[in-house]
């Protein structure tokens, strides 16, 4: 993005612009809250999608709502793009800075109030996801969505991405657990979406703001629902000697009217990688392992575990183990939770995919991935949120070797396009950001993308909030289509739609 700025005249224009913006911001912010020297802004060059980096023009660290409003007013007036940022744990580059823009770091908004009577918490955007449940634990309550990065990620980022987690099959996504979002429009005007009640008057703007990747409004405060902590949780670890029966077992659990608290799958390659990492006695012979969890009152869990065991046995499980106690349950989960670092241990680099497919296509998808491993001559290990069809294939490669990087990108694109053709989506929970802009061309028609842009403009007519994310331009989609034909890959037909 900033390559074109390297030429001298352009750089001079950029420097002058930076000077003007900093001068305007200094009127409303203390000096220490404005960063613009390269060494100070460097930590903000990327989020967890580290392959994409852009040096921001300015980073601001406001501490009060009045400061946020003032910054937005100035940026709006001067037509400066604004990228809001929480903990920077996003995996799709949603917080990648804009070269001509301001990064609005909201990390200092870290207060919350728990109301045990209404079972809600009013949480500032910079509060970490896990901190909410930790604070609510004193009242026997917790906040259900639990993305893997919950130790670090913030509720503001969760709202931007509509984050899920291992337990969202039963407890829903961020959308289902948020009552109200309070913040600012792009011009600094205060705004409320949703309410303390279960609905609000007018169009359901809350549902479109959640998951909008910071492109519609700036989130400052979130009212979340808290629910009673289940008295007990137990987990079944089931082995399967072939992928097909594991996939069928997932469908069978659901078909029997059971909604597990979590239902996860790992293939043999992934199991081997995590076993070396955590030593949790995983069955290394199994083609696939399922983790199936039940939570609730002891009566509920007792009844449900029996039903789950029966279904998994009937589906052909070769080994079944039920956690005896909390320590063993956590041990079962330790491998699954460490899938990413374990993959880092067996390969110099890996690329994590995030598509969702209908549950019934799980086995078919795994087989397709096995064929792609041959086609692109790269290994792939698989962890799936099987219960909701959300896949995280990790493609292993070595970025030092240019051709591996290229093959890895083609492999990834192939997985996403196959997911769309099976009736799924290119991103289940990580978001589009900058990473999946090309894939949006595959999933949505030009008219649909234009409609997204119309939504964006209804909130932000000058397109200053996080511009360039989520919605690819027509030109970009045309080039992506051409590239594919050129490389002899799938041509660019209109893929089957659902």
């Amino acid at each position, binding site marked *: 993005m900033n390559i074109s700025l390297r030429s001298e005249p352009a750089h001079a224009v950029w420097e002058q612009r930076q000077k003007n913006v900093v001068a305007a911001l200094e009127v409303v912010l203390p000096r220490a809250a404005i960063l613009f020297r390269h060494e100070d802004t460097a930590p903000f060059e990327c989020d967890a999608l580290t392959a994409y980096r852009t040096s921001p023009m300015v980073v601001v660290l406001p501490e009060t709502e009045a400061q946020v409003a003032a910054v937005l007013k100035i940026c709006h007036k001067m037509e400066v793009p604004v990228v809001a940022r929480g903990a920077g744990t996003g995996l799709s580059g949603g917080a990648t800075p804009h070269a001509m823009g301001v990064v609005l770091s909201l990390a200092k908004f870290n207060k919350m109030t728990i109301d*045990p*009577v*209404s*079972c809600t918490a009013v949480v500032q955007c910079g509060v970490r996801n896990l901190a909410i449940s930790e604070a609510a634990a004193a009242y*026997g*309550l917790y906040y259900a969505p639990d993305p893997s990065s919950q130790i670090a990620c913030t509720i503001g980022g969760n709202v931007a991405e*509509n984050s899920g987690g291992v337990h969202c099959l039963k407890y829903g996504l961020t*959308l289902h657990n948020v009552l109200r979002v309070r913040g600012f429009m792009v011009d600094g005007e205060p*705004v*409320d979406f949703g*309410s*303390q*009640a*279960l*609905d*609000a*008057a*007018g*169009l*359901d*703007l809350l*549902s479109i703001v959640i*998951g909008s990747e910071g492109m519609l409004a700036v989130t400052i405060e979130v009212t979340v629902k808290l629910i*009673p902590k289940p008295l007990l949780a137990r987990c079944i670890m089931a082995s399967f000697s072939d992928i097909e029966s594991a996939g069928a077992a997932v*469908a069978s659990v*659901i*078909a029997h*009217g059971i*909604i597990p608290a979590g239902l996860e799958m790992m293939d043999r390659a992934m199991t081997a990688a995590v076993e070396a990492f955590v030593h949790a006695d995983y069955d290394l012979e199994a083609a696939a392992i399922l983790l199936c969890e039940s939570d609730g*009152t002891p*009566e*509920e869990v007792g*009844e449900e575990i029996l039903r789950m065991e029966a279904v998994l046995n009937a589906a052909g499980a070769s080994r079944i183990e039920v956690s005896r106690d909390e320590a063993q349950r956590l041990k079962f989960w330790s491998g699954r939770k460490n899938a990413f670092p374990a993959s880092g241990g067996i390969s110099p680099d890996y690329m994590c995919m995030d598509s*969702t*497919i*209908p*549950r019934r296509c799980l086995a078919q998808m795994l087989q397709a991935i096995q064929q792609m491993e041959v086609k692109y001559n790269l290994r792939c290990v698989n962890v799936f949120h099987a219960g*909701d*069809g*959300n896949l995280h294939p990790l493609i292993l490669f070595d970025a030092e070797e240019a051709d591996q990087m290229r093959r890895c990108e083609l492999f990834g694109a192939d997985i996403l396009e196959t997911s769309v053709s099976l*009736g*799924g989506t290119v991103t289940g929970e990580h*978001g*589009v950001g900058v990473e*999946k802009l090309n894939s949006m061309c595959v*999933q*949505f028609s030009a*008219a*649909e993308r234009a*409609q*997204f842009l*119309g*939504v*964006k*403009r*209804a*909130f932000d*007519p000058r397109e200053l909030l996080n511009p360039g994310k*989520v919605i690819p331009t027509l030109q970009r989609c045309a080039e992506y289509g051409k590239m594919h034909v050129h490389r002899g890959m799938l041509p660019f037909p209109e893929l089957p739609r*659902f």
Partner: protein
Amino acid sequence: MDAQDPVLARLVEQVSGAHAHQTPLDIRGGGTKLFYGGVPAGEPLDTTGLAGISSYEPTELVVTARAGTRLSDLESALEEQGQCLPFEPPRFAAGGTVGGMVAAGLAGPARVSVGSVRDHVLGMTLLNGRAEVLTFGGQVAKNVAGYDVSRLIVGSLGILGVICEVSIKVLPVSVATATLRFDWDETRALRQLCSWRAQPLPINASAWHGGRLHVRLAGARAAVEAACRRLGGERAEPAQALAWWDRVRDQREEFFLINETSAARRESMWRLSVPANSGAITLPGEQFIEWNGALRWWKTGAEAALVRDAAARAGGHATLMRGADESVGVFAPLSEVLMRVHRGLKEAFDPKRIFNPGRLYAGL
């Protein structure tokens, strides 16, 4: 959905013509909710031809149905597989459609525990005001590709486009249910509901009216039995309880009927959506409480301003469900900033303002 479908093609043609001539259209399914929202106006656009379940895979917990599908047909298909629409959409009369259910976005007694209509909508095909057929979301629960447009459409009363097809998350019917009754006044009922909320109890719905609280439990058999023992009260006969909850859901229970006496008193039916722990809200007239206190129905002759003020003070909003005088506006007025976004969205989806003018707010 197939753009070549002849029924869809006819709708596209009608919208295209209306767009060209700026003719207002009144999107019409079964016509069972004409009383809800602003007064319908414009040339009718009939969605009932666009009927049928497009796909239903019980193991996916997802059903995709075309907008004109009768709600009763959809519910029967689900029932055959032991599944249901867990949010219990009200059936005010026979003939209501799936499209109407989504456009109204109204949910029944279980909404408090399972979530709303929008919580269960996964994807949608929409015909916008430029006569473009667009698909958003999909048939999978986890999907964050692009803005969640299909959920924005839920409850929009047709002002942004014609719902053509919708994918909905469904759930298995609960293994066990039980209804308990308690003869408690409003204060005690609200207090108890409040304290139960913070405990892991399988409370699926609640309703209070005239000194009696009804609590429905649903879930695993052992959990329902354990909760019955813990909560006490009088256990209702199952068939009788089922029929009673259905009458509440469909607003056929006596309270909801505007009879001659209440009409003579110029009473209206108001829906107050408020935080559950608001405490008692007092207005002249009669009250019915649902959603563990988060939904208060008032049959009252009070001025609209008084009702709206009571709801706003509690942190919620009031809707005129069935009114003696709808000139007061059906929905609570919006802040200027939110109204600006509403106008922007209307412009983005329906630039010629042809769809259901005035059904949600005047000028939209």
